[in-house]
């Protein structure tokens, strides 16, 4: 199978703290991978390394077979939704979207589903600093999906969203998966991962504890729910 992202022996420490100790994993096109793990397990660091926001101490990351070190072109193929999205305070929502299009220099083939689903097009005149945390999350989500990238990386996408908006986002994620996109999701909400993910990666203290399909995991543990299965496999 062809892998779109390959992570090879990735190591990263912040000061004395080893956040990632030799992480090896591959992601292939099409499918949703849920990245789980307790706080400080290295989930966000792994994601940020893939995005080139964190520079690894050792190992390498390949995107479509090419190393991502010192390159930025590959990010055209990634839509990223950060845990906490913050934007220039005085900028208006409409300007932000315009700016991102301008910076990426992409003005066609845009995916504006989420913008209309969240009613963001009705508040283009609102400045970013007047927005609530939830609305900012919506903006972040809409931005991640906007450019129709083949890879989506969502860092705790539904945290802070109201249930209805979270449902909209989940539906969108499933739609995109059906188009053959790779979607990485970190989350602490197990029911959500249970609903969405095809594969589950569990990070613990900078190592991959396991990385297998949800069906395998459930079959191995004989549990129907991901939460139960996790407790069983980790105890």
């Amino acid at each position: 199978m062809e892998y779109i992202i390959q992570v090879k022996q990735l190591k990263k420490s912040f000061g004395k703290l080893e956040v990632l100790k030799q992480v090896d994993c591959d992601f292939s096109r099409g499918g949703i991978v849920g990245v789980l793990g307790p706080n400080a397990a290295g989930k966000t660091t792994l994601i940020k390394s893939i995005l080139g926001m964190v520079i690894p101490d050792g190992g390498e990351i390949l995107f479509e077979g090419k190393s991502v070190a010192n390159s930025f072109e590959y990010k055209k193929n990634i839509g990223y939704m950060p845990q906490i999205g913050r934007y220039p305070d005085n900028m208006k929502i409409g300007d932000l979207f315009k700016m991102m299009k301008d910076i990426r220099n992409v003005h066609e083939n845009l995916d504006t589903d989420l913008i209309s689903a969240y009613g963001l097009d009705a508040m283009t005149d609102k400045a970013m600093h007047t927005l609530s945390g939830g609305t900012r999350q919506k903006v972040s989500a809409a931005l991640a999906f906007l450019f129709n990238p083949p890879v989506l990386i969502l860092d705790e996408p539904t945290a802070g969203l109201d249930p209805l908006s979270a449902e909209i986002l989940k539906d969108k994620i499933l739609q995109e998966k059906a188009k053959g996109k790779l979607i990485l999701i970190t989350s602490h909400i197990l029911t959500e991962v249970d609903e969405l993910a095809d594969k589950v990666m569990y990070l613990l203290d900078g190592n991959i504890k396991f990385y297998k399909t949800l069906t395998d995991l459930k079959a191995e543990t004989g549990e129907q729910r991901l939460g139960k299965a996790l407790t069983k496999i980790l105890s």
Partner: protein
Amino acid sequence: MFKIAKYISLDIIKSKVIIAYTLLLAAICVSIFMADEDVTKGLVSITTVMLIIVPLVSVVYATTYYFNASEFTELLVSQPISRTNILMGKYLGICVAILGAFLLGVGVPILLFAASITGLTLILTGSLLTLSFISLAFLSSVLMRDKAKGIGLALMIWFYCSIIFDGLVLVFLFAFSDYPLEKVLIAITAFNPIDLARILILLQVDIAALMGYTGALYQQFFGSGLGITFTLFMLMVWFLLPLWASLRVFKKKDL
């Protein structure tokens, strides 16, 4: 790079701080020119005020803005843009805004009231000073992870240049008063952009004679073409070196 710069400067121009800064500078300049018939004296007064306010505002505002926009930087890093372009775009954007404020607040009144070589020197050195302190602000921002430390370091740089440096020079002069230090002093001034700017302007005003023997020596060196070139060159170094250093740090920085 220019796109990022454009958005950042548009963002800053809308903020009240930069408008207040422009108005403050303009008010100071206009009131000084109105209060005194003698334009040269006015320029000297403006120099004194400018050498305190301009570096302070540039360094603090640029650092604060850098940190306030740090999540925005993260967003940009996740986009297909090189890190060099991101930092340079940010730098350009901030520079355009703060330099614009300076040119409007100080440049315009000077051109109206005292459009002389001295006036132009003041505008030029003020601009270079603004650029150097924004560079220094960037350096302290990329070196520090959190905002408080970043602003702290930025303020330390300002303290060093405006207050501590003079103290150090005095101690040095006192300790080595038995030796001829005039030439050494010229070299020492290169370590402080504010002093460089002060000397460059004051020597244009021709009041160096008031500064005694050292002043005469300064006049001889800094008043000459070579001296002016040296001072401008050193100011350029103060603006380019920290910028280059911050670029190097930023390329390897975790966000």
